[in-house]
């Protein structure tokens, strides 16, 4: 791991969370954190879970865990207490690392500045296999899937990035806007920057001005990595200040609105590249110069096919811990659940959208079935349907006589991460159903039924 991620001159600035951190300092902080993890009960081949916002502490802890040979599970710090507790029950890590309490901070910060809290968990289990990275993904049914990747798998993904001439190189800068606990921000942003020798910069503020300030703060060739929302945000700035160091923006995590790539190029004079990837596999296909949009070229070593309209990708081993449903992975192929078309002449792929109940809110994946099931269990809710309509998750529910839509939504918000909470919850005396009695899931029909009713929560 040292060769892959920590090598380089002591004085090389490699991370910037407000202030710069050079490689010598990073190596020292990582070594110190290793001692702290060990003291908390991390054994060789042990397990640690991180529930931390983007921060220098997060990077230090992740690298320290790996340097100890541990399996590190990354939990989104925005999960609710109940969601985090369920994840910890399932994973049984030996050590939990969290952000400590902070004084009330400014809104829309790009990173967290908090003391780190390391807690030993007696009864935590050592790692069962070679996997070094564990991530949870919302499943369309039942509990989250546990996605596991080995060190070799991560090294192969870093090699894929290193082969992309348009990805940041040594001497460059990466302004990272994507979540660092999800695969594209983690591997494409953080780990690639450390591997390639580019400086990773987190903006002080995640507003349009804040992002441009971070870009303009350095003279070295700068690549911004974010989600399509960020590109939309920057494109909407009518007269941005000059950004001479900006060479490219790369977005991933959801589909890009058709007009945005060209508008971005006109605004900033540089390409808006796109990537497609999955937690199970990392980066899968790219269009980094924005010339093939919406088509993407498969990344080195990936084999893609479309079966019955669904994109399948070669993956020899089961990417999940435990048993896996055959409609997720079978016979060495991962079933992406994305609809796609592959051009037989060029091999390029166009991803058309999800074939299941997963939606993306600002690049964060939300499974509508999971949220719907949680809402159905909320006291006062007798039946409900969730749809993704006009850019937002919307809930329609039958409530008992004593529960208001505001109360139902509030009870739901206490159980799930904020980004999963429906924008609107409308109470209907009876949800529309088909002739056979099934709940109708048409956004139009639900909207029409809702418009006749009282205001929403």
């Amino acid at each position, binding site marked *: 791991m040292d060769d892959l991620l920590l090598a380089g001159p002591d004085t090389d600035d490699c991370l910037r969370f407000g202030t710069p951190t050079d490689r010598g300092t990073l190596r020292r902080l990582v070594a110190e954190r290793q001692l702290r993890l060990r003291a908390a009960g991390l054994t060789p081949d042990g397990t640690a879970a991180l529930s931390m916002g983007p921060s220098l502490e997060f990077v230090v802890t992740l690298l320290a865990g790996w340097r100890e040979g541990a399996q590190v599970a990354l939990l989104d710090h925005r999960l609710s207490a109940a969601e985090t507790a369920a994840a910890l029950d399932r994973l049984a890590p030996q050590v939990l690392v969290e952000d400590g309490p902070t004084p009330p901070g400014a*809104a829309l910060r790009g990173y967290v500045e908090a003391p780190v809290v390391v807690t030993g968990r007696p009864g935590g289990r050592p790692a069962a296999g070679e996997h070094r990275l564990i991530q949870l993904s919302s499943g369309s049914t039942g509990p989250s899937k546990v996605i596991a990747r080995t060190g070799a798998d991560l090294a192969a993904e870093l090699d894929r990035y290193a082969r992309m001439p348009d990805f940041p190189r040594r001497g460059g800068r990466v302004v990272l806007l994507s979540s660092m606990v999800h695969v594209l921000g983690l591997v494409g942003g953080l780990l690639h920057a450390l591997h390639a020798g580019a400086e990773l910069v987190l903006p002080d503020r995640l507003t*349009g001005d804040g992002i441009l300030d971070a870009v303009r703060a350095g003279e070295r060739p700068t690549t911004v990595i974010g989600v399509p*929302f960020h590109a939309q945000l920057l494109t909407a700035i009518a007269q941005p200040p000059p950004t001479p160091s900006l060479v490219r923006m790369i977005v991933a995590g959801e589909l890009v*609105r058709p007009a945005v790539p060209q508008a971005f190029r006109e605004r900033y004079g540089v390409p808006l590249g796109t990537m497609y990837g999955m937690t199970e596999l990392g980066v899968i296909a790219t269009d980094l110069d924005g010339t093939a949009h919406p088509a993407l070229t498969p990344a080195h070593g990936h084999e893609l096919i479309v079966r019955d309209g669904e994109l399948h990708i070669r993956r020899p081993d089961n990417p999940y811990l435990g048993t896996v449903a055959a409609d997720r992975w079978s016979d060495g192929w991962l079933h992406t659940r994305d609809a796609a078309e592959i051009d037989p002449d060029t091999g390029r792929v166009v991803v058309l959208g999800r074939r299941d109940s997963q939606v993306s809110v600002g690049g964060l994946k939300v499974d509508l079935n999971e949220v719907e099931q949680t809402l159905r269990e909320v006291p006062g809710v007798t039946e409900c349907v969730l749809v993704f309509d006009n850019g937002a998750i919307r809930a329609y529910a039958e409530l008992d006589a004593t529960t208001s839509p505001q109360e139902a939504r509030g009870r739901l918000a206490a159980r799930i991460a904020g980004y999963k909470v429906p924008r*609107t919850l409308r109470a209907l005396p009876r949800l529309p159903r088909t002739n056979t009695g099934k709940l109708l899931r048409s956004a139009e029909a639900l909207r029409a039924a809702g418009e006749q009713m009282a205001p929403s929560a």
Partner: protein
Amino acid sequence: MSLLPPFDRAAVIGMLAAFGDRDPSAVDEEIGSLELTWLVTEVEQRYGITVELPEDALDAVWTVDDAVRVLGALLPAAAAPAEGR
């Protein structure tokens, strides 16, 4: 006379409508976190200010009216919403 456009419900709905090129009638009364980030960026651009708010103040913005009240309080008097507007 100020050159700053007034910051009222119509202004907020207009800024939110630009997110995704929507018709103003398609803008919800409720504001999601992405829309809020969008709105803050628009306010900073249009009114030339930096929106500096504690996290809990922004977390309390759930609706268009909340946004008019909370963000409007940061603006120069010429643009801020009048009492009861």
